[in-house]
């Protein structure tokens, strides 16, 4: 992108010089005009106005005005990025206002591809160009959100947590490990784009096939997202502001469908829960008034429940020694709505001021960005301050250009990371796991209620008060400083040759501290000490790129060739320290030295990853009709053992612009028609770190030290920490792509693509038996997976009259995912464990799609003893428990009867973008949907079965569970329509094994955004010195249409339930994810001086 702008700048300079010279030579008339855009009716600054057939031209100024010398009869060609070029015949000295039609996918649009840019019409690979102007209307606070629903083939899964990075898949998931695409921001390869201010973004291209992405070789296997940021424009000077303020509303209603405390009391007795019954001495349906526990309870004893208010007077809280506590809470008879105690309406604001401009030698863009986004979850927030400076300057008659692009960002949040909610011990999970009878605060009104203040034996459950959990987040802080960008120099060293060198990268520092409070309100951890942890991370990476470009036309032969050399390297360290037993938790006091250092501080060195690459690309076209390109990249990656480091990734594309052929030129309704195909190879080194090839040894106090002397002075020991595998190498994606691009009837743009992506040797941790020992298994080339599918997108630009224009864009992505091979001998790999069991939810098996749910098929409920005896059974089966399908027909239910019960892959996903403009009003709506995906609603493990930890239980359990009367041979279910096993205190397999009961239809349609805007009359604004003023109101997630019973059907990548590790090998499992379908209402303003 950079280069294209610079080249353009160079051309412009030449043009201007020519214009001046032509004035001298011929006596011509002065011709003026004004160029505006059809979209916002605003002046277009910097549009090129050129006399056809000459190099004479001009550029519009800040008011969109231009002046040049010419004479009637001349044809002027007016062009600007993002608009259709327009030809106007000079018919007088003033041409008045010339309106350029918006052209989102204009053929002459310059598209930034790998290391170069090309005209859209000359591209024969698969590149999705995100219409940034459209996308920005969504008012994203992180840049990945701009991609969602905007580009066919790109799946973006956002978290509802503020500032949380999104998960992006290009053309589906094709591997168990790291499937994140490569992000290239202003030519620098970075790990994500979430830190780029969306307002700074000029363009986003997504390279989807090997034809385009192979130039990134071993880094391109998961697709490439190329982002360029805005630059200043020569001879202009603008200051613009855009900002918005909005409020996000939490989901409403009884989101977990929980029962009331009184119903819970009834249910406890129905289940025969003898411990739980201690909470309700008055019997089924009754509720006690107070719960208490501790020392000094006098006649009340040390714990229990009572209706006697005298117990309140005994209340004692001793922060210094919880063993002295006597805590009392007054039960919430109506039930605490934990979800809405912690999820509140949350404001978001974002402000960006951008100043840009330049003269004919130097351009600059300077932007300041402030984001303050509160999460709907109490005390979740993200604050970001960012300064971007993009400048470049030229010398030696514009033959040498130097510049930089970069930002410094300071970010602050509460240190909670996105993943903590997709987990059974996140605050979100506790909104259903904490009993509703528990109040937010105990009788002190200051200290929190919880499972401690009640009878022993834990009838109040072992959950954590989620309000307490989040309230205590207020003293957790994480601070991030990032410096990211590049500096570059570019020179035209000879005719047709340009060399460029760029060094860029990221300096990153993170510091966070967490205060851990004494969890006095919890049953299990009442006396645990408080503490504090301090953590720091720093990392650097650099990316040095050198390219040479040759560009020349010989008659109708047009050639562009690129050669390059690149180096990447990264380093980093972490440091962690802890203390405990602080006498005050005042955040202004808490320092490491203020407590007892009980845990050993430790640090971590990141394994450096270095990549060295050579690459080349040739683009050729004949007369704009036949297009050929070839790419090859040679990468050497340090993460593999010598001998396995070097990979060569070739690709080739072919294109035929049929519409340029004579036989089609007469077909007026075909404006453009192009057929293209590509094939090539890409790579990925996934999550392999440099140690993977080596057997390594390590030591640790808790891992290998031992009190061999019989004292606490333990002796150092070593252990084999990592099994090395020197034979591992990159995974290879072989991709074929066939595409058709068409522009029809002057209004309809259409692209359809078929792709086949086969990943061989995808990298994943090898499943090893315990007989290999405790060392970490190496990541190996685990198997093959294939994605085949279609991406189709179409946009129709309509115009009813001068006042009313509209466009409708739609895209649809479909892919079929199949695992072709796995190197392990079982041909499957299980993941996503359930609570306290090695029973997994997901089985990734050869011949099946990834993330397939594997469990029992529920076919009913055993209605009576006769049925129990006659139907295949299992250990723990009883009248009133699930009947599972005997899939192998062996007359018994064993794990051999587990079967595939659905998978998380959609049949297709789709996006619809609607734009309309009427006079000064504009309207935008973006819809996004997914069809045919299944969600595994694991939250039901906690709420729909009685025999799980005590906690909130669901209406489904209360109303639809089997009710069994009688015992033994006379046992019978009295409600034959029951859909759930009977509420019982006795565990049985039927209650909660992985089964089809949890699998739900996860299809959805979301109204991602609806926006209504108004642009003020520029004439009126001029008087107050403003060029442009646009105001809008917007609703985000206005509606979600789904049958899914959980919070949000759009499922984030699953975290392994207990370890919290993200795994692409499993998605679609709901462990209690931060919803991303919360409504948000925004008011925003854009104006330009």
């Amino acid at each position, binding site marked *: 992108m950079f280069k294209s702008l610079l080249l353009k700048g160079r051309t412009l300079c030449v043009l201007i010089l020519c214009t001046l010279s032509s004035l001298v030579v011929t006596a011509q008339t002065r011709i003026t005009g004004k160029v505006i855009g059809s979209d916002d009716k605003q002046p277009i600054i910097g549009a090129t106005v050129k006399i056809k057939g000459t190099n004479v031209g001009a550029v519009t100024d800040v008011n969109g005005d231009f002046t040049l010398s010419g004479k009637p009869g001349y044809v002027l060609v007016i062009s600007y990025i993002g608009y259709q070029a327009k030809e106007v015949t000079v018919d007088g000295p003033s041409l008045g206002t010339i309106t350029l039609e918006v052209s989102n996918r204009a053929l002459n649009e310059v598209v930034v591809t790998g290391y170069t840019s090309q005209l859209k019409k000359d591209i024969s690979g698969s590149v999705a160009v995100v219409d940034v102007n459209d996308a920005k209307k969504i008012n994203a606070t992180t840049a990945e959100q701009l991609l969602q629903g905007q580009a066919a083939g790109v799946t973006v899964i956002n978290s509802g947590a503020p500032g949380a990075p999104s998960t992006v898949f290009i053309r589906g998931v094709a591997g168990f490990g790291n499937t994140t695409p490569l992000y290239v921001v202003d030519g620098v390869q970075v790990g994500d784009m979430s830190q780029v201010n969306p307002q700074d973004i000029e363009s986003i291209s997504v390279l989807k096939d090997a034809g385009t992405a192979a130039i990134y070789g071993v880094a391109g296997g998961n697709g490439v997202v190329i982002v360029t940021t805005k630059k200043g424009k020569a001879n202009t000077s603008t200051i613009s502001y855009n900002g918005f303020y909005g409020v996000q509303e939490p989901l409403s209603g009884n989101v977990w469908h929980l029962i009331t405390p009184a119903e819970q009391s009834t249910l406890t007795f129905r289940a025969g829960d*003898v*411990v739980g019954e*201690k909470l309700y001495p008055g*019997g089924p349906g009754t509720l006690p008034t107070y719960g208490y526990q501790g020392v000094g309870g006098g006649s009340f*004893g*040390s714990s229990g429940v009572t209706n006697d208010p005298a117990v309140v007077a005994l209340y004692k809280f001793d922060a210094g020694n919880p063993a002295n506590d006597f805590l009392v809470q007054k039960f919430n008879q109506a039930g605490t709505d934990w979800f809405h105690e912690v999820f509140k309406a949350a404001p978001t604001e974002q402000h960006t001021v951008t100043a840009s401009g330049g003269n004919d030698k130097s351009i600059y863009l300077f932007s300041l960005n402030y984001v303050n986004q509160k999460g709907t979850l109490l005390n979740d927030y993200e604050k970001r301050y960012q300064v971007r400076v993009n400048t470049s300057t030229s010398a030696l008659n514009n033959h040498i250009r130097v510049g930089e692009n970069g930002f410094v960002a300071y970010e602050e949040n509460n240190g909670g990371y996105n993943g903590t909610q997709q987990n059974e011990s996140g605050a979100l999970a506790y909104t259903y796991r904490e009993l509703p009878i528990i109040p937010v605060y105990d009788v002190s009104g200051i200290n929190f209620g919880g499972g401690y203040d009640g009878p022993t*034996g834990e009838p109040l459950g072992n959950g954590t008060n989620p309000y307490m959990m989040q309230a205590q987040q207020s003293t957790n802080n994480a601070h991030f400083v990032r410096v990211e960008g590049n500096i570059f120099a570019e020179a035209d*060293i000879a005719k047709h040759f340009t*060399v460029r060198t760029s060094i860029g990268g990221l300096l990153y520092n993170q510091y966070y501290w967490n205060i*851990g409070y004494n969890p006095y309100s919890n049953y*299990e*951890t009442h006396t645990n*000490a408080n*503490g504090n942890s301090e953590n720091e991370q720093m990392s650097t990476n650099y990316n040095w790129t050198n390219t*040479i470009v040759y560009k020349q036309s010989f008659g109708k032969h047009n050639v562009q060739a690129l050669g390059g050399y690149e*180096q990447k390297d990264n380093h980093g360290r972490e440091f962690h320290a802890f203390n405990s037993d602080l006498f005050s938790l005042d955040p202004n006091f808490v320092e490491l030295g203020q407590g007892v250092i*009980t*845990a050993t501080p430790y640090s971590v060195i990141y*394994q*450096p990853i*270095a990549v060295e690459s050579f690459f080349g690309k040739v683009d050729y076209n004949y007369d704009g009709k036949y297009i050929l390109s070839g790419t090859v990249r040679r990468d*050497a990656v*340090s*993460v593999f053992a*010598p001998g396995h480091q070097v990979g060569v990734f070739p690709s080739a594309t072919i294109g035929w612009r049929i519409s340029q052929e004579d036989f089609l030129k007469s077909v007026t309704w075909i404006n453009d028609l192009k057929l293209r195909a590509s094939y090539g190879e890409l790579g990925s080194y996934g999550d392999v770190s*440099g*140690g993977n090839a080596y*057997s*390594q*040894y*390590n*030591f640790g*106090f*808790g*891992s*290998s*030290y*031992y*009190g061999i*002397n*019989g004292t606490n002075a*333990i002796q*150092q*020991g070593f252990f*084999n920490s990592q099994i090395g*595998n020197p034979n591992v190498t990159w995974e290879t994606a072989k991709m074929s792509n066939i595409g058709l691009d068409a522009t029809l009837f002057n209004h309809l743009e259409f692209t359809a693509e078929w792709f086949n992506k086969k990943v061989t040797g995808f990298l994943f941790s090898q499943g*090893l038996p315990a007989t290999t*020992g*405790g*060392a*970490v298994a190496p990541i190996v080339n685990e198997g093959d997976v294939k994605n085949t599918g279609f991406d189709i997108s179409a946009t129709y630009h309509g115009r009813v009259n001068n006042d009313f224009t509209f466009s409708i864009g739609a895209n649809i992505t479909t892919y079929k995912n199949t695992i072709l091979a796995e190197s392990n001998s079982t041909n499957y790999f299980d993941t996503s464990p359930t*609570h*306290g069991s*090695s*029973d997994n939810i997901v089985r990734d098996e050869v011949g099946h799609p990834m993330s397939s749910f594997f469990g029992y098929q529920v076919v009913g409920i055993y209605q009576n003893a006769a049925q129990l005896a006659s139907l295949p059974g299992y*250990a723990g089966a009883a009248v009133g428990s699930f009947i599972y399908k005997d899939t192998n027909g062996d007359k018994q239910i064993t*794990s051999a009867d587990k079967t595939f019960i659905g998978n998380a892959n959609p049949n297709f996903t789709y996006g619809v973008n609607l734009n309309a403009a009427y006079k000064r009003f504009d309207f935008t709506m973006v819809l996004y949907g997914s069809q045919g995906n299944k969600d595994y609603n694991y939250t039901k493990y906690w709420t729909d079965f009685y025999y799980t930890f*005590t906690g909130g239980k669901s209406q489904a359990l209360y109303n639809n569970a089997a009710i069994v009367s009688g015992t033994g041979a006379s046992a019978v279910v009295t409600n034959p329509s029951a859909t759930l096993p009977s509420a019982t205190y*006795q*565990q049985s397999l039927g209650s909660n094994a992985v089964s089809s009961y949890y699998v739900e239809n996860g299809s959805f349609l979301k109204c991602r955004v609806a926006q209504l805007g108004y642009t003020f009359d520029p004439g009126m604004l001029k008087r107050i010195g403003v060029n442009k003023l646009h105001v809008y109101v917007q609703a985000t997630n206005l509606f979600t249409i789904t049958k899914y019973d959980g919070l949000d059907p759009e499922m984030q990548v699953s975290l392994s339930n207990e370890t919290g590790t993200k795994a692409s090998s499993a998605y679609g499992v709901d462990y209690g994810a931060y919803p991303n379908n919360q409504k948000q209402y925004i008011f925003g303003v854009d104006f330009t001086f």
Partner: protein
Amino acid sequence: MKNSYIKFIALGSVVVFTLTFSCKRLLNQEPVGSLGATVLANKAGLDGLLIGAYHMLSGFSQTNNDGATIWSAGPDNWSYGGVGSDDAYTGSSLTDQPPFIQIENHTMDENNVYLNEKWVAEYNGIQRANDVIREVPLIKDGSVSAAYGAEAIAEARFLRGVFHMEVAKIFRNVPYVDENITYGAGNYDVPNPGPIWDKIEADFSAAMGATKGAALPLTQQQIGRANYYAAEAMLAQAYMFDHKYSLALPLLTDLLTNGETSGGAKYAFEPYEDNFNAAHNNGPESVFAVQMTVNDGSNGSNGNPGMTLDYPGGGLAGCCGFYQPSISLANAFQVDANGLPMFEPSVANPGVGSFLYNDHQLPSDHGYAIDGSGNYRLDVAGTFSGTPFVPPSTALDPRIDWTLGRYGIPFLDWGLCGGEQWSRGDVCPYNPKKNVFYASVHAGVTDNVLGWAGPLDNANNYNMVRLSQIYLWRAECEVESGDLATAQTDVNTVRNRMASHHEYWVHTYIDNSNPSAGSNTGDANLAANYKIGLYGAVAGTDFVTLGQSMAREAVHIEEQLETGMEGKRFFDLQRWDPIYGGSEPSGYMAGVENFHIKATIIGRFSTTGKPADAAPDLNGHTFTAGKNEVYPIPQGQINVEAGKLKQNTGY
């Protein structure tokens, strides 16, 4: 222009060449933050690898490949050896840690996550031991003499034998992994065609060496290391599991004649409770102990983390109420008029493995709660009745009150035990005691670390083998060989420690409100009605008169009483059952287990009138003979071993 062009090319070439060479270094990135195998090829490396192997005796490593939970793989086997038998209940609330509940009520299947973690931990230890054996020949720098290397290998083989014996006890049919099994060799899918006692025996024999002291020394400078006698005891134990009594007998006799600890102390009895007190770690009874340490920088990881959950839910610990001693264990401590155990068959429920002691329910505070006046009274449906609970006057073997916490009996120096009020879940009257720390040294022997249940790691060593077992194993051998008189002598030796030392019995506190003030002394101040007699002291109670069969029961119940709550019971029952060659009648283990379940399902009435058991999760479950004597092989291991591993019968 032409000139400059060439210059650029020349310059560019230089740049490219320079880079190409410099990048050899760029791409050669050695692993960071860890050691390569070559760094360890010296004495310090060898020593460290051996210590690392010893570390795995704790069953826990912070590395991420051996299971996430810390309480699944401790050396004490509280779950597999205790909860899985008639020794103990899971405890806690009945929805807590389902995998342990499955072990308790014998519904565990091949997906039981903790069984897998135990398996993984032991093989981790095995390969760490193998790393030592593999490292010795790699050391060429002269820092390790042949003798030193051989001794290191002897210790490694000892540890390898111990780890294999752990999995063999639990799963029986397990792979044997020696130093030739490596990832690099690709031979790691090791099958489990049958028991591996012969290979375990070979490891211990090698550790002992051809002659005394030839391999493992008789004493060690570092007391945590295995000595010759530790290996001899382990070999004897392997023979006991292998039912080779005649091979075990001479080893046991040598141990009792000549045996000494690694520290050089002659094996001798000490006060019973000292075996369970961190202040007396590595005493003369300690044949081989897992060293537990705290406040050592490990954040509690070395303080027997496997027992983290196993402290009374009430009292000083506050968490987590797992591992509750069973009603049948408490009943077993009841004695007859002669102070001998009641091991004859039950009268009420005669059958294999049923014992008379369970016909006599030891009165407990099961079903009691504090009433409105602060009295501890029977609570039925919220209605209090009867008089406040007082500990029963039943005659009891004095070891009971070191083995389990009962209401009203001094609980170490914590104060009087709260009984059922201390047991989380409030349904079981007994609390674990042997593994619990003393309040006075709480800070010194426990780890004060952050996080959940952090303060509950402590420095009490776990004795894998202690002296009483040597005596009782020998008694077993003698019973089987028909030498009943000598067997009686060995059993009496164990009993006599308590019988002749009343000062080892639990006495009342000087001041109940200030337990740190210590205990009274003298028989007038005993905490309960203790009585322990010797076999043969009263006519008709000697082994010869009892006959081989009853003598066998006498030895077996002695092992139950002496090592109760030490995680050994399940494996002893398995050893004695004839299914694998034991001498008890067919169906013995199932009989014991099912009678234990029956003894548990008694008690009070809940508000709805349904019986509330001391362990409600046992209700409706049985132990299946021919299946539950061993645990299922973890399915995940079967899956990943490509069909080489076979599941145990019945699973």
